[in-house]
Protein backbone atom coordinates (compact mmCIF):
# COMPACT_ATOMS: atom_id res chain seq x y z
CA UNK A 1 0.00 0.00 0.00
CA UNK A 2 1.19 3.50 -0.77
CA UNK A 3 -0.05 6.88 0.31
CA UNK A 4 0.36 9.82 -2.06
CA UNK A 5 -0.23 13.38 -0.87
CA UNK A 6 -2.69 15.27 -3.06
CA UNK A 7 -1.83 18.40 -1.09
CA UNK A 8 0.70 19.08 1.67
CA UNK A 9 -0.18 16.56 4.37
CA UNK A 10 0.89 15.50 7.83
CA UNK A 11 0.58 11.85 8.85
CA UNK A 12 1.19 10.06 12.12
CA UNK A 13 2.34 6.47 12.22
CA UNK A 14 1.19 4.93 15.49
CA UNK A 15 2.67 1.55 16.37
CA UNK A 16 0.27 -1.19 17.30
CA UNK A 17 1.54 -1.37 20.89
CA UNK A 18 1.14 2.37 21.37
CA UNK A 19 -2.36 2.25 19.92
CA UNK A 20 -3.35 -0.69 22.11
CA UNK A 21 -2.16 1.21 25.19
CA UNK A 22 -4.24 4.20 24.12
CA UNK A 23 -7.36 2.07 23.57
CA UNK A 24 -6.99 0.32 26.92
CA UNK A 25 -6.99 3.69 28.65
CA UNK A 26 -9.66 5.18 26.34
CA UNK A 27 -12.02 2.45 25.05
CA UNK A 28 -14.08 5.00 23.11
CA UNK A 29 -11.10 5.42 20.75
CA UNK A 30 -11.27 1.71 19.97
CA UNK A 31 -15.02 1.81 19.42
CA UNK A 32 -14.76 4.79 17.05
CA UNK A 33 -11.95 3.09 15.15
CA UNK A 34 -13.91 -0.15 14.78
CA UNK A 35 -16.96 1.76 13.55
CA UNK A 36 -14.94 3.79 11.05
CA UNK A 37 -12.91 0.89 9.67
CA UNK A 38 -16.07 -1.24 9.56
CA UNK A 39 -17.72 1.35 7.32
CA UNK A 40 -14.61 1.39 5.12
CA UNK A 41 -14.68 -2.40 4.76
CA UNK A 42 -18.34 -2.24 3.78
CA UNK A 43 -17.52 0.36 1.12
CA UNK A 44 -14.58 -1.65 -0.22
CA UNK A 45 -16.65 -4.84 -0.31
CA UNK A 46 -19.29 -3.00 -2.31
CA UNK A 47 -16.70 -1.75 -4.75
CA UNK A 48 -15.18 -5.21 -5.09
CA UNK A 49 -18.58 -6.70 -5.89
CA UNK A 50 -19.21 -3.87 -8.37
CA UNK A 51 -15.95 -4.63 -10.18
CA UNK A 52 -17.28 -8.10 -10.93
CA UNK A 53 -20.96 -7.33 -11.44
CA UNK A 54 -21.00 -3.94 -13.09
CA UNK A 55 -19.70 -2.32 -16.26
CA UNK A 56 -17.67 0.89 -16.15
CA UNK A 57 -20.77 3.02 -16.77
CA UNK A 58 -22.58 1.64 -13.71
CA UNK A 59 -19.44 1.84 -11.57
CA UNK A 60 -18.88 5.48 -12.51
CA UNK A 61 -22.52 6.35 -11.82
CA UNK A 62 -22.26 4.64 -8.44
CA UNK A 63 -19.02 6.45 -7.62
CA UNK A 64 -20.47 9.85 -8.54
CA UNK A 65 -23.50 9.15 -6.37
CA UNK A 66 -21.38 8.14 -3.41
CA UNK A 67 -19.02 11.10 -3.72
CA UNK A 68 -21.88 13.55 -4.11
CA UNK A 69 -23.66 12.09 -1.09
CA UNK A 70 -20.51 12.27 0.98
CA UNK A 71 -19.03 15.53 -0.21
CA UNK A 72 -21.58 17.21 -2.39
CA UNK A 73 -23.22 20.48 -1.67
CA UNK A 74 -26.60 21.59 -2.88
CA UNK A 75 -26.31 24.96 -4.59
CA UNK A 76 -29.68 25.89 -6.06
CA UNK A 77 -31.02 22.38 -5.90
CA UNK A 78 -28.33 20.44 -7.75
CA UNK A 79 -25.52 18.39 -6.33
CA UNK A 80 -21.97 18.91 -7.35
CA UNK A 81 -18.79 17.03 -6.63
CA UNK A 82 -15.94 19.31 -5.65
CA UNK A 83 -13.39 19.76 -8.44
CA UNK A 84 -10.79 18.15 -6.25
CA UNK A 85 -11.28 14.85 -8.08
CA UNK A 86 -9.31 14.83 -11.28
CA UNK A 87 -10.27 12.71 -14.26
CA UNK A 88 -7.35 10.38 -13.51
CA UNK A 89 -8.45 9.94 -9.91
CA UNK A 90 -11.97 9.01 -11.01
CA UNK A 91 -10.45 6.55 -13.49
CA UNK A 92 -8.38 4.81 -10.84
CA UNK A 93 -11.26 4.78 -8.34
CA UNK A 94 -13.56 3.18 -10.90
CA UNK A 95 -10.83 0.69 -11.79
CA UNK A 96 -10.84 1.28 -15.51
CA UNK A 97 -9.03 3.34 -18.12
CA UNK A 98 -9.33 6.97 -19.17
CA UNK A 99 -11.07 6.30 -22.49
CA UNK A 100 -13.76 4.09 -20.95
CA UNK A 101 -14.48 6.60 -18.20
CA UNK A 102 -14.65 9.47 -20.71
CA UNK A 103 -17.17 7.46 -22.75
CA UNK A 104 -19.19 6.63 -19.65
CA UNK A 105 -19.22 10.25 -18.52
CA UNK A 106 -20.46 11.22 -22.00
CA UNK A 107 -23.30 8.70 -21.72
CA UNK A 108 -24.32 10.05 -18.32
CA UNK A 109 -24.20 13.59 -19.69
CA UNK A 110 -26.35 12.71 -22.70
CA UNK A 111 -28.89 11.02 -20.44
CA UNK A 112 -29.17 14.18 -18.37
CA UNK A 113 -27.84 12.51 -15.25
CA UNK A 114 -24.82 14.78 -14.89
CA UNK A 115 -23.32 17.94 -16.27
CA UNK A 116 -19.71 19.00 -16.26
CA UNK A 117 -18.96 22.68 -15.92
CA UNK A 118 -15.77 24.41 -14.87
CA UNK A 119 -14.10 21.05 -14.23
CA UNK A 120 -16.83 20.08 -11.76
CA UNK A 121 -19.34 17.28 -12.04
CA UNK A 122 -22.92 18.25 -11.22
CA UNK A 123 -25.57 15.65 -10.50
CA UNK A 124 -28.59 16.88 -12.44
CA UNK A 125 -30.89 13.90 -11.98
CA UNK A 126 -30.06 11.56 -9.13
CA UNK A 127 -32.83 9.12 -10.12
CA UNK A 128 -31.39 8.62 -13.60
CA UNK A 129 -27.94 8.25 -12.07
CA UNK A 130 -29.28 5.63 -9.64
CA UNK A 131 -30.76 3.71 -12.57
CA UNK A 132 -27.36 3.63 -14.26
CA UNK A 133 -25.65 2.71 -10.99
CA UNK A 134 -28.00 -0.20 -10.42
CA UNK A 135 -27.41 -1.80 -13.81
CA UNK A 136 -25.57 -5.12 -13.57
CA UNK A 137 -23.85 -7.10 -16.28
Amino acid at each position, binding site marked *: *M*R*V*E*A*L*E*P*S*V*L*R*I*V*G*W*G*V*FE*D*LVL*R*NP*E*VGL*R*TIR*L*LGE*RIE*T*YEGRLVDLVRKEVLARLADLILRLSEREGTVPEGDYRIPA*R*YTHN*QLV*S*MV*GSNREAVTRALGTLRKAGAVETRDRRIYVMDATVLEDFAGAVR
Partner: protein
Amino acid sequence: MIEGIPEERLLLNGVDILRGLSLDEMECLARRSDVARLGKGEGLTLGGGHRGILLLVSGRVRVHEPNLGSQDPTFSIVEGATVVGHIDSAPNFRGRCASKRSSRRS
Protein backbone atom coordinates in the same frame (compact mmCIF):
# COMPACT_ATOMS: atom_id res chain seq x y z
CA MET B 1 -1.80 28.01 17.64
CA ILE B 2 -3.26 28.39 21.10
CA GLU B 3 -0.71 29.86 23.46
CA GLY B 4 1.15 27.22 25.44
CA ILE B 5 -0.20 24.23 23.51
CA PRO B 6 2.12 22.77 20.87
CA GLU B 7 0.66 22.64 17.36
CA GLU B 8 1.20 18.87 17.15
CA ARG B 9 -1.19 18.23 20.03
CA LEU B 10 -3.80 20.58 18.63
CA LEU B 11 -3.63 18.81 15.27
CA LEU B 12 -4.00 15.38 16.87
CA ASN B 13 -7.04 16.63 18.75
CA GLY B 14 -8.70 17.23 15.39
CA VAL B 15 -8.44 13.55 14.38
CA ASP B 16 -11.96 12.11 14.56
CA ILE B 17 -11.17 9.00 16.59
CA LEU B 18 -9.13 11.00 19.13
CA ARG B 19 -11.62 13.78 19.83
CA GLY B 20 -12.16 14.50 23.49
CA LEU B 21 -8.92 12.96 24.70
CA SER B 22 -6.99 14.88 27.32
CA LEU B 23 -4.02 17.03 26.36
CA ASP B 24 -1.82 14.60 28.29
CA GLU B 25 -2.96 11.78 26.03
CA MET B 26 -2.37 13.91 22.94
CA GLU B 27 1.09 14.77 24.10
CA CYS B 28 1.85 11.15 24.88
CA LEU B 29 0.64 10.03 21.46
CA ALA B 30 2.63 12.77 19.72
CA ARG B 31 5.72 11.67 21.62
CA ARG B 32 5.30 7.97 20.90
CA SER B 33 4.42 8.12 17.22
CA ASP B 34 6.36 9.07 14.13
CA VAL B 35 5.39 11.98 11.95
CA ALA B 36 5.57 12.05 8.15
CA ARG B 37 5.21 15.37 6.36
CA LEU B 38 4.52 15.00 2.67
CA GLY B 39 4.55 17.68 0.02
CA LYS B 40 2.07 17.55 -2.84
CA GLY B 41 2.84 14.50 -4.98
CA GLU B 42 5.15 12.92 -2.42
CA GLY B 43 4.48 9.38 -1.32
CA LEU B 44 4.90 7.09 1.63
CA THR B 45 5.23 3.39 0.96
CA LEU B 46 4.06 1.14 3.76
CA GLY B 47 5.19 -2.40 4.21
CA GLY B 48 7.43 -4.52 6.37
CA GLY B 49 7.43 -6.18 9.74
CA HIS B 50 5.47 -4.11 12.22
CA ARG B 51 1.83 -3.14 12.40
CA GLY B 52 -0.05 -0.07 13.40
CA ILE B 53 -2.47 2.68 12.54
CA LEU B 54 -1.84 5.46 10.06
CA LEU B 55 -3.51 8.77 10.94
CA LEU B 56 -3.95 11.65 8.54
CA VAL B 57 -3.60 14.70 10.75
CA SER B 58 -4.00 17.29 8.03
CA GLY B 59 -4.15 17.43 4.26
CA ARG B 60 -5.50 15.00 1.70
CA VAL B 61 -4.04 11.71 0.46
CA ARG B 62 -4.73 9.00 -2.05
CA VAL B 63 -4.36 5.42 -0.84
CA HIS B 64 -3.36 3.25 -3.74
CA GLU B 65 -1.52 0.13 -4.78
CA PRO B 66 1.15 0.99 -7.36
CA ASN B 67 2.30 -2.58 -7.84
CA LEU B 68 -0.86 -4.01 -9.37
CA GLY B 69 0.11 -3.93 -13.02
CA SER B 70 -0.50 -0.74 -14.95
CA GLN B 71 -3.79 0.16 -13.29
CA ASP B 72 -2.53 1.66 -10.01
CA PRO B 73 -5.98 1.35 -8.40
CA THR B 74 -7.07 3.94 -5.85
CA PHE B 75 -8.58 2.38 -2.74
CA SER B 76 -9.65 5.65 -1.24
CA ILE B 77 -9.03 9.35 -1.07
CA VAL B 78 -8.84 10.43 2.53
CA GLU B 79 -9.07 13.94 3.93
CA GLY B 80 -7.78 14.94 7.33
CA ALA B 81 -8.22 14.38 10.07
CA THR B 82 -8.99 10.69 10.36
CA VAL B 83 -7.63 7.17 10.19
CA VAL B 84 -6.12 6.32 6.83
CA GLY B 85 -5.94 2.67 7.63
CA HIS B 86 -4.36 -0.22 9.35
CA ILE B 87 -0.79 -0.79 8.20
CA ASP B 88 1.83 -3.46 8.55
CA SER B 89 4.71 -1.08 9.09
CA ALA B 90 5.16 1.15 12.09
CA PRO B 91 7.95 2.53 14.21
CA ASN B 92 9.24 0.70 17.21
CA PHE B 93 7.47 0.89 20.52
CA ARG B 94 9.01 3.80 22.45
CA GLY B 95 8.42 4.34 26.15
CA ARG B 96 5.10 4.21 27.96
CA CYS B 97 2.58 6.79 29.05
CA ALA B 98 1.25 7.09 32.56
CA SER B 99 -1.58 4.57 32.89
CA LYS B 100 -4.08 6.97 34.41
CA ARG B 101 -7.48 7.21 32.76
CA SER B 102 -7.73 10.30 30.61
CA SER B 103 -10.10 13.05 31.61
CA ARG B 104 -12.41 14.41 28.92
CA ARG B 105 -12.16 17.97 27.82
CA SER B 106 -15.49 19.58 27.36
